[in-house]
């Protein structure tokens, strides 16, 4: 079993025979403009030619930033080119899971790449959620290339973006049902947050704050003009206002 070294045949839209994702050529998950930029880029031509799922690791381990396209000419990042290559290769599930779990444990950019692929290519919503949610507790930093310059993000930030946003890294992500919908349909269990008990405590404080302001019968003006009403707690659990905390 072999696949072609370059993507010309799969890019040619006539008579595509091969794995289908969401009912269509996997390469079509990227828009035409982005596809053209990738295929014309030097990185794709030099480094992404003749890769298979194993040699792709060579390139993926050398990644130092994530991103979509940048600059005036919409230059694609190596991250995007490798994601495109993964879409061309359509590796087996186990290989992607290996990228995410074991190999990604040590190389965070590989994990980001695999997560991006999972979100794009896997068709069952439940699988996407259950596979990506464990990484919402991975707080390693990622460097991100944005249109003009750089930004800082984290692995869990990135995974959250993938699950919530519409457009990430120059691609429109395929539609998935929101988690609430899946929980209602009983296809998924309600989410257990990694924050666990801390979340409950936070919720309790919010309730207490509401109760306090309700009994006074006035609308309090919060110090420093802050819009949200969350006050911080001191170590003894009492609700302390901001002014007192500033003395620390």
């Amino acid at each position: 079993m072999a696949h072609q070294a370059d993507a010309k045949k799969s890019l040619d839209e006539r008579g595509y025979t091969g794995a289908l994702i969401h009912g269509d050529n996997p390469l079509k998950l990227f828009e035409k403009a982005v596809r053209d930029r990738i295929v014309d880029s030097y990185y794709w031509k030099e480094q992404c030619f003749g890769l298979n799922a194993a040699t792709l690791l060579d390139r993926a381990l050398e990644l130092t930033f994530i991103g979509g396209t940048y600059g005036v000419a919409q230059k694609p990042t190596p991250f995007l080119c490798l994601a495109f290559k993964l879409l061309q290769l359509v590796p087996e599930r186990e290989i992607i899971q290996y990228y995410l779990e074991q190999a990604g444990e040590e190389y965070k950019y590989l994990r980001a790449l695999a997560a991006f692929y999972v979100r794009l290519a896997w068709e069952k919503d439940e699988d996407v959620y259950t596979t990506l949610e464990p990484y919402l507790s991975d707080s390693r930093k990622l460097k991100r290339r944005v249109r003009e310059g750089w930004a800082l993000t984290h692995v869990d930030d990135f995974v959250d973006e993938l699950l919530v946003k519409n457009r990430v890294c120059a691609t429109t992500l395929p539609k998935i049902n929101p988690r609430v919908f899946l929980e209602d349909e009983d296809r998924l269990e309600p989410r257990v947050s990694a924050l666990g008990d801390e979340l409950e405590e936070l919720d309790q404080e919010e309730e207490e704050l509401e109760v306090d302001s309700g009994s006074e019968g006035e609308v309090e003006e919060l110090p420093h003009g802050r819009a949200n009403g969350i006050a911080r707690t001191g170590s003894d659990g009492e609700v302390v206002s901001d002014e007192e905390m500033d003395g620390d």
Partner: protein
Amino acid sequence: MADRKAGAYGAAGGDTAFRRTWDRDEYAAKAADREQKVKEEGKARYEAAAAGKKYIPRASTPPDARDTEARNARLNVADLVGKQTIVVAGAGQGKRGKSAGFYCDACDLTYKDNLQFVEHLNSKQHLVATGESGEVRRATLEDVKERFEYLKRKREDEKSREVVDLTARIEVAVEVEEREREVRRRKRNEKRRKTKDGAGVQEIKVENDGVIC
């Protein structure tokens, strides 16, 4: 097409050594090969027709075609920056023959641009010339795991081999600086010599040294 070295009226002809000459024997052999292929194809068609089947002409991949693999190292393109090459007078027009720029040995073609060069290296023409099929072996989970372990080990080895000693690093850095200063001095002197008449030499700086990446 007899001997053209002598002129028509016995005048001395010029030197025509740089013109292309045709190797008759080689082309005779090629023609014989082709005739044989046509005969064989004709036979195959005849047999297929006799058996009532349709003859499908298949271009045969040479049996020893290797699987295409990914590049091991980056193309060394930055070396050619600022280099001055002497080109043979009879270098072919266009891409054929060795000329200034990036030269591909297997196909005898020159490219003016590293982007075009890389495109050529990926093309069918070049793959056939180097005896590679355009197909890549599909990797299994085992392959992936092996490769990962190998790469991890390689990276760790490289890291451990890095010189951590501060004094050694300072020495190395000082040496590198000295070399760079010398090179700069030489270049400055050359420029000054060239422009004795007072007109400055315009340095044209291209983005990223003209290398496309």
